[in-house]
């Protein structure tokens, strides 16, 4: 018994030293990334002074864009979302609405609303996809930029690949059918391609629409949700986008462009083989593969993040739905990193191999496991009487303090830059959310991500249904 006690004490001692080292490393990394993001945002804001996006709108030198909008059973929202896309400010663009074998009457609704006729258009299958049943164009001049594709169901990645095959323009923009792009979002996200011809992809910021006033597919008034869960996610998104992706973009180490809003060079996407079908993290996987393709073929490339072209999305409002979403995201992360494990610590991939992939592998992917083991070890140690309660409490306080510091840092980045939440009450609430998310919410998200490992090992590949309240024609989301 005494021997067991000694072994437990030794194990716990080793683990506690590991945890402290890991904790310091992670926080140093977060702090560095916060500083890099801060510098990048300041640089971006300075450049914005000399950027009048109307000039892109008026210029024949803008790069044309094909917007890819995959849809599955979207009969209720497809008209609003398509109209909203067609009204975006951009000089030359086409909207490709891809009906991914919907079981409802999405296609019929589209045909009727937009006066579509089936064409004899040649489908060039550069990326293999499920069969295309028909390509439709409108007989009305005002919808001349709309192309509707009807295809056999194959999932979001397959629908996007069909869109890439059919698209005519050099840039392809992937969006979620249920997201709202701001009017100038395309102008802003396209600018890095004009700045530097090495840019192969650009991600834009995704913000949470819950709580905002939305009218006819446009965000009219920005407010925080009165509910806790969406508000926690607002702070999380600030951390992820403003103090995470902004920094990664600045050092050309960005591995994720949200599937909800990204712009890609079509030629490179085609060369890479398009979106992968058999992963739930197809958006991240494509970005990593594009990086990898360019590095392996000696092509100078950059993947950037721009913080102001906004895509509004609806965040889950129940723990059940949020849990499913986080589980899927984490499975996607695990899958992508394991597919591309050859990049880990590989100097051939420069920043990606030496910084980005190791960070995502050891901190983002394994972090939840380490944190969960920490909780278990502390509880076990406490009951075995081999842990000092005071030290545990102190450590917990320290971890909360650092967690809050990074949340406050992300809110600071938002306030010095875009100030999308104009009310002082919203700012106070955001700061408060940054504090209280550490007591319960953070632990729940750890649990969801730990479960994702189990699901991944079981070979679960499903997305899980994402019940949304939806953006009505005029609604105020609570």
């Amino acid at each position: 018994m005494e021997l067991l006690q000694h072994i437990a004490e030794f194990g716990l001692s080793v683990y506690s030293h590991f945890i402290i080292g890991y904790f310091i490393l992670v926080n140093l990394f977060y702090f560095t990334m916060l500083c890099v993001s801060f510098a990048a945002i300041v640089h971006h804001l300075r450049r914005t002074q000399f950027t009048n996006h109307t000039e892109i709108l008026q210029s024949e030198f803008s790069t044309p864009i094909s917007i890819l909008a995959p849809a599955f059973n979207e009969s209720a929202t497809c008209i609003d979302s398509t109209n909203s896309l067609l009204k975006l400010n951009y000089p030359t663009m086409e909207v490709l609405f891809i009906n991914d074998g919907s079981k409802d009457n999405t296609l019929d609704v589209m045909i009727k609303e937009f006066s579509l006729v089936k064409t004899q258009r040649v489908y060039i299958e550069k990326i293999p996809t499920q069969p295309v049943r028909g390509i439709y164009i409108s007989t009305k001049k005002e919808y001349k930029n709309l192309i509707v594709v009807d295809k056999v169901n194959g999932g979001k990645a397959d629908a996007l690949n069909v869109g890439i095959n059919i698209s005519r323009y050099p840039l392809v923009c992937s969006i979620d059918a249920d997201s709202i792009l701001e009017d100038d979002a395309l102008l802003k996200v396209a600018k890095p391609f004009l700045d530097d011809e090495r840019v192969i992809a650009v991600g834009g910021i995704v913000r949470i629409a819950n709580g905002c006033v939305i009218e006819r597919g446009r965000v009219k008034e920005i407010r925080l949700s009165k509910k806790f869960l969406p508000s926690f996610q607002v702070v999380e998104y600030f951390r992820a986008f403003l103090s995470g992706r902004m920094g990664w973009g600045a050092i050309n180490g960005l591995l994720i462009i949200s599937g909800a809003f990204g712009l890609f060079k079509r030629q490179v996407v085609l060369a890479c083989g398009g979106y992968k079908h058999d992963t739930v993290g197809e958006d991240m996987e494509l970005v990593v593969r594009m990086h990898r393709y360019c590095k392996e073929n000696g092509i100078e490339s950059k993947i950037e993040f721009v913080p102001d072209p906004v895509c509004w999305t609806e965040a889950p409002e129940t723990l059940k739905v949020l849990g499913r979403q986080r589980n899927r995201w984490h499975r996607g992360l695990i899958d992508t990193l394991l597919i591309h494990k050859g990049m880990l610590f590989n100097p051939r991939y420069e920043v990606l191999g030496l910084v980005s992939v190791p960070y995502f592998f050891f901190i983002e992917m394994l972090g939840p496991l380490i944190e969960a083991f920490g909780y278990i070890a502390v509880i076990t140690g406490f009951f075995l009487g081999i842990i000092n309660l005071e030290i545990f409490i102190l450590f917990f306080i320290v971890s909360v303090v650092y967690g809050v510091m990074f949340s406050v840092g992300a809110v600071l980045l938002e306030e010095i830059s875009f100030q999308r939440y104009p009310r002082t009450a919203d700012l106070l609430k955001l700061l408060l959310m940054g504090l209280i998310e550490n007591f319960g919410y953070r632990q729940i998200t750890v649990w969801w991500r730990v479960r994702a490992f189990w699901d991944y090992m079981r070979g679960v590949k499903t997305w899980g249904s994402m019940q949304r309240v939806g953006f009505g024609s005029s609604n105020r989301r609570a």
Partner: protein
Amino acid sequence: MTIAAVFIIVIISIGLIIQKIRAGINVQKSRKFFTDAQLALTQFVLAETDAPANAPQSVTQKNALEAMVRQLFRVSVEKFAQARSHRRDILREVMLDFSLNLTGETQARLDFAFQALGFVAEEMKAARSKKWWIRARACHRLRLMHALDAIEVLSQNLEDDNEDVRIEAALSLLEIVGVGALSPILLTIKDISGWMRVRISNTILGFGGEAVPHLIEGMKSNNYRVKKFCIEMLGRLGDVSAVQTLIEYMGYDVPEVQIASLEAFGKIGDHRAIPIIIKYAKSENEQYRLAAARALGNLGSPATVSVLNELLLHDTIEVRLAAAEALTKIGQLGIKTLEYSAHSENEDAKKVAIQFLHERTVLKTTY
């Protein structure tokens, strides 16, 4: 470290809240200054005076205008020029805002006020700052101030390391000097990005045909992107006087430049270019064939139908599609060729011909 972190959190949080509240108060305060400045400025530009600001001025006229500036801003010009107040910044912003919408005598009077209040001198100094964003902003403001004195510093900034500074300097020179600045700009800049193309192209198009000789001169640049830009602009301006030079430049062995020339031929629409386009339509290079097919479509000459018909049989689908689209633009002869291809034995040519004929029928009857 933890104490430091707590300290940072508290400081940032309090700072953010105070800043938010102060911002609200400052907006209200500034609004009054803005209104005052706008009123004073409106009176200044509309006031009746015998002293024309845009004509060569005598000392008396200059003094009269300075007196107006003094009177309207209720401060001595010299003292005001030295003051670095919040009000001064607001006044400058309002004046810059006004300059966007003024022309003629009122603009000249405003430009005089920029000089008299010391804003031009200040911006010229800022245009040499060590910080790029200050240099770029100064170049931008000098444009709005129509500062003739600033031509030298703006010309120097064309070679700046920062692109935004170069762009602002180029735009300012085009605004202040006019089309005459175009060829020196094109020959001075070492490279041109997509963003610079977007920004200066609208100004160049505004010059119309006057820009053509300057663009032809700009084609002597050592940078192929600048050459390509000049060719693209010539294409957009559609001036036939550029065709001979463009034909000569087809000998410049950079594909991007040659492809841009092919596209420009199509846009200009001069039939002298047909033989050279046909030569490239038969090239091994797919990109040349694509550009040639598009150019032939834009030219719309029935004499090119046989070449386009050959391109309909090309291995690459993109070339076939471009050829079919071009044939639809040529008129009846082109359509007849497509109808023939729609019944041909070559499946590839047949498919694209059917596609274009069908879409033409559907859209023609409804648009």
